[in-house]
């Protein structure tokens, strides 16, 4: 692989505390190095912004529910075809793009790493098949644990060590990266058409509470020393008044000791940050949640920014999706997965004139602006729930410019405008903060040491944008900032130029990250006895056919952790 020297760019590297410094970046063998030889290929980045490749912590890009959504929504694709070129495959866009298109569109925006945040373990083979097919970007997936029968039974019996061994086994069996919880206990209740709403409700037939599940899995996360926090979608999604449950969820794990990173990452808080008692009365709970996050270090959040456009809602939270379907009255897909989890999909459109939608849009932006520390909040649209990932540049323009936000505020529902704090918030993100919330902080939160920065030894995943920092005031020139982030001047993946002027010039194969915690043999043995004795009763697949062999991952990147179990 030829060496590469990126010259004279304005480098933003928050993890190494580099802000808009004119620097050269040297690349050899897919890594960033101290210096390269004289024969290195020169890439002139004068007058441009150089950042680490984007790292997306939460984007539903692959797996059975994404694919059910694609199948259910031909109308979503037909107006957005992506023709083949000599170097790239064809596909379709919009809210749920086909796999090849997903990789290309991320790369065009300078993103090089994306995590699929919810995979039903039984169907994770499917998730990996899709992830393998997504070109260019590195990826990983979070298996769902919050409604798993083995988990709930261990929680009930208070056997945390065996639970930890089970989680470790599952992460290896599914080649998963982190623990994901969606509506703990609620999806099990959905088996009978019900739900749990608050942290202390009891899960039918299992006699545990969501709080007990969340606490136990957070303890396990800590015991297993997993690279990422427990990634959680709390109970009561989309219901008015759910902000309190969100705060309670964060509060209930406060006493668990941290091991180098927050205990919990609460995701797409826009959907769980609502005050009020009924739909006409919904208000923003962002100030309270932001206040909590500002004063506590054991949590991080992402807003799941809403975009006024047609979207596809998809989540493992089956009951919440049915509740939303009853409002949207469009198309509804439900797919429960035996002994583990569920899924719901609904097509929908967000309108500026709709009061609730306008409040949602406001909640997400208020969160992003009121949480003071950019290392605690990351940019997401909860693709494709809040909006497609291709809308990130638009979200960036709202973050860097009050004027850009004001233009939208002027058009939204008047009551919502009156009730939101957003019009009075003056904060504008700097490009350095944008680099933090889109790559540095997400890479740090995921525990990916070689991502999200440009220091020596980092992976050479680099994005170069057409923005000249001293000359461009993002607050005023937000349109050119948006354009620049939509089409990277260059995207470099593992030291290879994959995008030039916003077009994919070369397709490469990214890696799939997964975690293998090392658990002591004795605990593993006890757990395996339980597992073997119950597996055939719980599943319609034999235990021998359940684990996904390593060769399923076309480029596997295992991360081992030493544990306290």
């Amino acid at each position: 692989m030829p060496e590469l020297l990126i010259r004279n760019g304005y480098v933003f590297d928050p993890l190494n505390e580099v802000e808009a410094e004119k620097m050269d970046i040297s690349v050899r063998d897919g890594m960033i190095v101290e210096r390269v030889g004289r024969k290195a290929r020169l890439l002139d980045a004068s007058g441009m912004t150089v950042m680490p490749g984007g790292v997306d912590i939460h984007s539903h890009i692959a797996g059975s529910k994404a694919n059910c959504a694609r199948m259910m929504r031909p109308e979503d694709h037909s107006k957005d075809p992506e023709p083949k070129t000599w170097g790239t495959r064809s596909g379709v866009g919009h809210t749920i793009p086909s796999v090849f298109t997903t990789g290309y569109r991320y790369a065009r925006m300078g993103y090089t790493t994306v995590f699929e945040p919810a995979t039903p373990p039984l169907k994770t083979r499917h998730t990996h098949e899709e992830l393998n097919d997504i070109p260019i970007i590195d990826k990983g997936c979070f298996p769902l644990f919050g409604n798993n029968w083995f988990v709930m039974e261990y929680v009930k019996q208070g056997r945390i060590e065996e639970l930890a061994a089970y989680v470790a086994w599952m992460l290896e069996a599914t080649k998963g990266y982190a623990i994901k919880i969606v509506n703990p206990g609620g999806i099990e209740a959905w088996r009978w058409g019900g739900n749990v709403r608050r942290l202390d409700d009891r899960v039918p037939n299992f006699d545990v509470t969501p709080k007990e599940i969340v606490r136990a899995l957070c303890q396990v996360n800590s015991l297993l020393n997993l690279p990422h926090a427990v990634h959680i979608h709390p109970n009561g999604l989309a219901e008015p008044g759910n902000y309190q449950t969100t705060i309670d969820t964060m509060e209930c794990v406060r006493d668990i000791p941290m091991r180098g990173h927050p205990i919990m990452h609460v995701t797409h808080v826009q959907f769980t940050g609502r005050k009020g008692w009924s739909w006409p009365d919904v208000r923003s709970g962002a100030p309270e949640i932001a206040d909590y996050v500002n004063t506590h270090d054991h949590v991080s959040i992402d807003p799941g920014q809403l975009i006024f456009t047609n979207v596809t809602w998809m989540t493992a939270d089956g009951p919440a999706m049915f509740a939303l379907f009853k409002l949207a009255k469009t198309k509804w897909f439900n797919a429960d997965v035996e002994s583990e989890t569920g899924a719901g999909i609904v097509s929908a459109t967000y309108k500026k004139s709709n009061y609730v939608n306008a409040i949602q849009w406001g909640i997400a932006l208020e969160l992003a602006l009121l949480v003071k520390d950019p290392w605690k909040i990351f940019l997401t649209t909860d693709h494709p729930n809040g909006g497609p990932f291709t809308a990130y540049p638009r979200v960036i323009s709202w973050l860097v410019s009050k004027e850009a936000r004001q233009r939208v505020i002027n058009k939204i529902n008047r009551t919502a405008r009156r009730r939101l704090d957003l019009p009075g918030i003056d904060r504008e993100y700097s490009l350095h903060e944008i680099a933090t919330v889109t790559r540095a902080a997400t890479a740090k939160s995921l525990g990916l040491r070689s991502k999200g920065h440009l220091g020596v030894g980092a992976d050479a995943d680099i994005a170069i944008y057409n923005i000249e920092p001293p000359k461009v005031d993002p607050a005023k020139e937000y349109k050119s900032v948006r354009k620049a982030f939509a089409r990277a001047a260059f995207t470099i993946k593992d030291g290879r130029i994959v995008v030039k002027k916003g077009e994919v010039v070369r397709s490469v194969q990214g890696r799939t990250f997964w975690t293998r915690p090392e658990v002591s043999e004795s605990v593993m043995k006890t757990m395996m006895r339980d597992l073997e004795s119950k597996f055939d009763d719980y599943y319609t697949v034999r235990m021998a056919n359940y684990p996904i062999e390593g060769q399923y991952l076309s480029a596997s990147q295992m991360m081992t952790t030493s544990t306290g179990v």
Partner: protein
Amino acid sequence: MSKTTLENVVCTFCASGCDDLEITHDGRDIYSARNGCAISLSRFTSTRESRILKPLLRTRGALRPTTFARAVDRAASILSNAKYPLLYGWSQTSCEAISSGIELAELVGGLIDNTTTSCHGPTILGIQDVGEATCTLGEVRHSADLVIYWGCNPIHSHPHHAIRFTIFSKGRFRRTRKDRKLVVVDVRRTDTAKLADRFVQIQPNADYEFLTALRTAIKGEEIEQSSIAGVPTETVEEIADMMVDCEFGALFFGLGLTMTAGKHRNTEAALALVRDLNYVTKFVIIPMRGWFNVTGANEVSTWQTGYPYAVDLTQGYPRFNPGETSAIDALARAEVDAALVVASDPVSHFPKAAVKHLLEIPIVTVEPKTTPTSEVSDVVIPSAILGIEATGTIYRIDGVPLEARRVVDPPVGIRSDVEILQAIIERVKRLGGRR
């Protein structure tokens, strides 16, 4: 080699995905398949029957043995010279092969369609209109106290379905046959119907009417007619009550619904009925897909092109318009000018008008055994049988992916579908893609 027994083998016949087979083999021949159904046993123990053992090429009117390279060469030139090639089949091969098939279709600018087009295509069209409330089969096993088989006869088509997943299975919340009720709706008294607590015999082609009446009844609205689809209204109301009163209902339907009058309107009505039932109880619907990887064909096609079947790639991007871009219609209109058939037998299964045109165009067949389609082909490339002689991923009815692993060696010189398709792709690329 001495006989050994391999456990937890995945069956590759129907889409139930039984994965508990015990196969006794000696590396070449298979002697028994325990735990499987009669069809499974026959599939595993007859792998060596009517096999094609050499690539065949039609020369001077007859199929004659040739080399692999020559067969691939001819296949590649047929496909790259065609203006509108059809790539059809895919439901009896692996997802990896289907993926190669899509790559090839894109390369030659063709139309790729799978057997969904002639079985559950209307189901997918129905889902695209109303969605689908479904679950994996284990959920049915654990929870369903009402099972409905509609227009299907699983005792014959999916012999272990009732034992592993429904009335005879042992789940967490439903332990025995007594914990479940079985309703069968069909136009004739099938062997499945004989097991039912309630058998409803409706008039042929009256499914839509009956489904609509049920939708009316579950909403508590009055039905004015005295009989619906040849069934007394009281019976309709009784079935509706059973549906509303159950705790977890599961409706399975087959080609009796999708391929009778109304087609996707039928499936739409069934999907909407189940959706409506979720307002009052928990209900799911699962199509009884046929071939072991027809679901996988839909899945791969969807994640790579956005559409589950009938994908036209001639414009350089995927287009989906069943009726225009579906295999049977494109053949019947005589638009297709070459065909690649992989793991399927359209000559036996397609309507006359489609077959008539198929016989007029060059056909390349990739298939383990002699079929009517292979007999009329211009190039025949024999392949290994998936799940017996080759490894690959397959998807069960309910979208649960399984790895179907190789048990014995294929006959000498026989390659897997993936290897064959990749060889054709390489050759087409060397020919410069689409001419």
